[in-house]
């Protein structure tokens, strides 16, 4: 096996980062998606556009601004220092924040689509059947939007695994903290360690294929509102 323990710790770190990012994104993405799918407010357009920004911006742009804002002179960096957390660049927490921003649209948009597809009728039905707003959320919206949650989780996780530019810009390539698989591959290539690069890169291709396979197969069996 040409993979070193450094490679395995990069894989483990990547899984940890992607899992944590996905969980956080589901928690904060759900209310955003719900709001975007229901509101008639003027803010819908601007907020939707901001959420979608990471789709079109090069990761280096996000990474660059994160580097500046999370640094000791940036607003966010000054805030975290005021909280006593120090600056978050070169830390796992910093990567999580970067990944959450970077993968936000990949979680919010499938959820938003799922919530929009449900429409308002089931919510009205639930209300006339004595279900309050929270009750309706858990007993109607969540189960009906389940395919959306599956898609959002898969995309959020996979996209975070595939993250490179942002990590490169704010990570500092620290083993067990910020050296994720994509960076490790880049390192191997730069150091001309092609065999190890191949193993890791090949594993990423296989992973990505199965993720997408799972995604497209689950689409068929999705159950919508009718």
């Amino acid at each position, binding site marked *: 096996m040409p993979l070193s323990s450094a490679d395995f710790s990069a894989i483990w770190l990547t899984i940890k980062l992607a899992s944590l990012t996905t969980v956080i994104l589901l928690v904060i993405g759900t209310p955003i998606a719900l709001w975007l799918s229901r509101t008639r407010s003027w803010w819908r357009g601007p907020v939707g556009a901001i959420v979608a920004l990471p789709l079109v911006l090069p990761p280096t742009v996000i990474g660059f601004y994160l580097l500046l804002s999370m640094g000791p002179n940036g607003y966010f960096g000054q805030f975290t220092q005021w909280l006593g957390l120090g*600056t978050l660049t070169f830390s796992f927490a910093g990567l999580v924040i970067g990944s959450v921003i970077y993968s936000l649209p990949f979680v919010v948009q499938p959820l938003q689509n799922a919530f929009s597809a449900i429409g308002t009728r089931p919510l009205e039905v639930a209300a006339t059947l004595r279900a309050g707003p929270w009750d309706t959320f858990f007993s109607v919206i969540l189960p009906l939007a389940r395919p959306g949650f599956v898609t959002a989780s898969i995309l959020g996780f996979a996209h975070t695994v595939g993250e490179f530019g942002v990590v490169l810009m704010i990570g*500092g390539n620290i083993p067990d903290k910020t050296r994720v698989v994509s960076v490790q591959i880049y390192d191997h290539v730069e150091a001309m360690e092609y065999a190890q690069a191949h193993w890791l890169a090949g594993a990423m291709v296989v992973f990505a294929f199965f993720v997408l396979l799972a995604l497209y197969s689950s689409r068929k069996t999705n159950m919508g509102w009718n």
Partner: protein
Amino acid sequence: MLIHASRLAVLATALVFGSAHADEVQVAVAANFTAPIQALAASFEQDTGHKLVASYGATGQFYTQIKNGAPFEVFLSADDSTPQKLENEGDTVKGSRFTYAVGTLALWSPQAGYVDANGEVLKRNQFKHLSIANPKAAPYGLAATQVLAKQGLSDQVKDKLVEGQNITQAYQFVSTGNAELGFVALSQIYKDGKVTRGSAWIVPAALHDPIKQDAVILNKGKDSAAAKALVEYLKGPKAAAVIKSYGYEL
């Protein structure tokens, strides 16, 4: 990226006329040499009538690209081993390899007075992050680790090291304040014989292996007059003065 439109155009021209364009030379330039080559390009073009098209990047990355058919004619590496390797593998014009500059390492902080003239700041160890270039890929990174080892500081700073993928990124971490100080190429902070900003310790050459930066004409530049002219120009006294003014030795 590897190929952008202008390079594609050159490639197309080369294909049509069966040889490289007589007036243009495609150069892969190590990131640390970005500023000097820009200064050199103007006078080179004026003196010879040729045009210099430069791409900047990491040496390891250039190696991979060259091995995979990138259209570079001249390669200004950040080290001496990569041009050697390319030569051994038959990707260069025999006898064209030479050292165009010897890099100088500097420990730098954008804060005035933060780094003392002897690098004692390292021993005091009162910083959170020390930025270096990736030692596996970048000669300046390797040199930085040698300096730390020689001073017996490797273990002490181990947990504080942050790595840029190349010397440019190592500089970026420091210049944005995310790392308080870092080992950078003197060329990045030096102009006209002095450090332009902040405070620095110019690391004595004895503390690390020499950072010999070698240049080589690649097979793609075999028949290019512009490539030959560039190599000759880099060896000349006019270029030497400019290179030195950026803090390199020769």
